[in-house]
């Protein structure tokens, strides 16, 4: 098992003939992802570089292939439209890679696309190692296993997963939820899914300064995941207050969203917070041994 994605999941690529779309389609196919086609309006009926059929609309693609998952490589002004189109066509899970989508666009998308899980935007996607990769992650650093990974950051996740893999801690599913202020899937959504996934035995949660998602996650863990080993990491702890470093989410304002408040929230539910990514694997092993000993 796994969450959100497995080997059978049928995936289409919105923007399959674009530069990024084509490049990552090839990489996802190489990883083994079950990509069944793609969409580029006006190029319907042709075949993409990857050999997959191109459709004019998501509806056509879904009708022809039975796809349930979509990954979106579309520039920011058109990304909301792509998400609406996926929803209207019955897509169940859409990964939105696009960076720079107006927050108000996402506000409305998230409120009006019930029944479709959105991962991102501004995220690296998700991967169930050894089965399927729907995203832009470097597949080779992931290994199959039983650690669920959730992260607001993209590249920092690769770092962390690489070290987990090197330490022999394979992953069940890794979800990059994205760093934008308004995202489709939160830490809590993923924690809930992991809590119902038999394969996932431990969880690594990679947060950031700003917002209250980490605090919410800590509260959920305290209530529903008391017996699961969880280790957290908070990125950006050396960022100066008030400075904006890339993710709009990483704004520190007032007392909410500070690293201190997040660390405190996790410690209150007995979740250790790693000082640096390279400490995570060791901390998780300790937690796993503790549970094993009980």
């Amino acid at each position, binding site marked *: 098992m796994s969450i959100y994605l497995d080997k059978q999941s049928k995936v289409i690529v919105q923007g399959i003939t674009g530069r990024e779309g084509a490049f990552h389609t090839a990489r996802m196919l190489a990883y083994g992802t079950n990509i069944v086609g793609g969409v580029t309006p006006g190029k319907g009926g042709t075949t993409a570089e990857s050999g997959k059929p191109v459709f004019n609309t998501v509806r056509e693609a879904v009708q022809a292939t039975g796809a349930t998952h979509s990954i979106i490589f579309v520039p*920011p002004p058109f990304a909301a439209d792509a998400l609406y189109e996926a929803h209207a066509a019955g897509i169940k899970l859409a990964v939105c890679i696009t960076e720079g989508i107006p927050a108000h666009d996402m506000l409305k998308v998230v409120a009006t696309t019930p029944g479709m899980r959105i991962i991102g935007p501004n995220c690296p996607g998700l991967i169930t190692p050894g089965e399927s990769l729907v995203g832009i992650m470097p597949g080779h650093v992931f290994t199959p296993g039983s650690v669920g990974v959730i992260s607001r950051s993209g590249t920092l996740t690769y770092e962390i997963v690489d070290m987990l893999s090197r330490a022999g801690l394979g992953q069940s599913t890794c979800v990059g939820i994205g760093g934008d202020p308004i995202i489709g899937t939160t830490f809590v959504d993923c924690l809930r899914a992991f809590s119902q996934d038999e394969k996932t035995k431990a969880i690594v949660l990679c947060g950031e300064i700003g917002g209250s998602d980490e605090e919410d996650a800590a509260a959920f863990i305290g209530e529903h995941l008391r017996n699961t080993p969880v280790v957290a990491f908070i990125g950006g702890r050396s960022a100066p207050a008030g*400075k904006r470093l890339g993710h*709009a*989410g*990483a704004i520190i304002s007032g007392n909410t969203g500070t690293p201190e408040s997040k660390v405190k929230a996790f410690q209150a539910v007995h979740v250790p917070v790693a000082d640096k990514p390279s400490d995570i694997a060791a901390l998780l092993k300790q937690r796993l041994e503790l549970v094993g000993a009980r």
Partner: protein
Amino acid sequence: MKLMEYQGKELFKKAGIPVPNSAHAATAADVAAFIRANPGSWVLKSQVFVGGRGKAGGIKFADTAEAATPIAETLLRLVIKNNQAPEGEAVRSILVEEKLDIASEAYLAIMLDRATKRPVFIVSAQGGMDIEEVSEKHPEAIVKYAVDPAVGFQPFIARDLAFAANLPTGYHKAFPKIAQALYELFFSYGANLVEINPLVLTKDGRVFASDAKVELDDNGLFKHPELAAWKNDSPGNDDEAAAVAIGLGMSNYAKLDGDIGVIANGAGLGMGTMDAIRNAHGVAANFLDIGGGAQAALVKKSYALVVSNPKVKALFINIFGGITRGDQVALGIVEALKGDDLRKVPLVVRLTGTNEKEGRAILAEAGMHPVETMDEGAARAVAFAKSSGT
């Protein structure tokens, strides 16, 4: 993008939110000339982005042009500091505004709330300078309403807020219209925050937005080319302009206080790299995120930007490729080091992820050998900076 008070009030006026009569003046002479032409009691309000200007002496009163001149001169020399901005911000200009005969001060704001994924109205009958204290000590005096974006503003929301916050009845007639206009402004400009503090009720029963705080979402600015001129006034503009000039996102570069340059791909890894440098007892000289999928030319330009900061004594390039390809990064580094046009500093490269093998081959050909881990790279860069002397 943050707007200054006078800019926010221009948007308020267009949206139909009542604001006091005012004039925006850049010099003390302009202030005096305006007051001479418009006799009355005026408030001189320092135009800055940082909060707390009232407590810092940035707001003064004047009834005549003669009295106003020295006050304006003093204000225009003022540097306003607060906890968030210890280095302070120089006053740029003055908003000369009608002095209101205040009966009551309320608070009204709408902000984008991450947790509910909705625009949230925030209202209190206890507005004014101490709203943060109210929020801490009397949270029950602050009422909130999260608007369903599918529904949008509806009049009941304003009624509900006004009654729940116990706004004095003097507000009741004007409040729903102001709340609606503020929501429409928030919505149509794609704001992160719009705030009126205080929303003043005058003794003769009129309601005015006496201050205006507006923060727009940079990602949505392409829908409002008419605001481009204000962008130049926005704080952090030097860093943003430098980033945009080389083709980065406007928030992908920020100059900091240390001496170790940082180039990373992704904001998370960029912050992680800074954390690693701190863990190695060094301090980053900047944050620079080359974004996703950077090509060689952008990597070279990023190098140039970082070393243009004379404080930089060593540079740590930390790449974990996903959408970014190692070969393009390597090519950019090699290009940057060619010739003499760019300053050379001790360089540590860490390169892994997508097209790692190709990238390492390119670097090896140029005689460079990347480190394996972020911690290792940070430690080495800190050592380089320290050994280069002070």
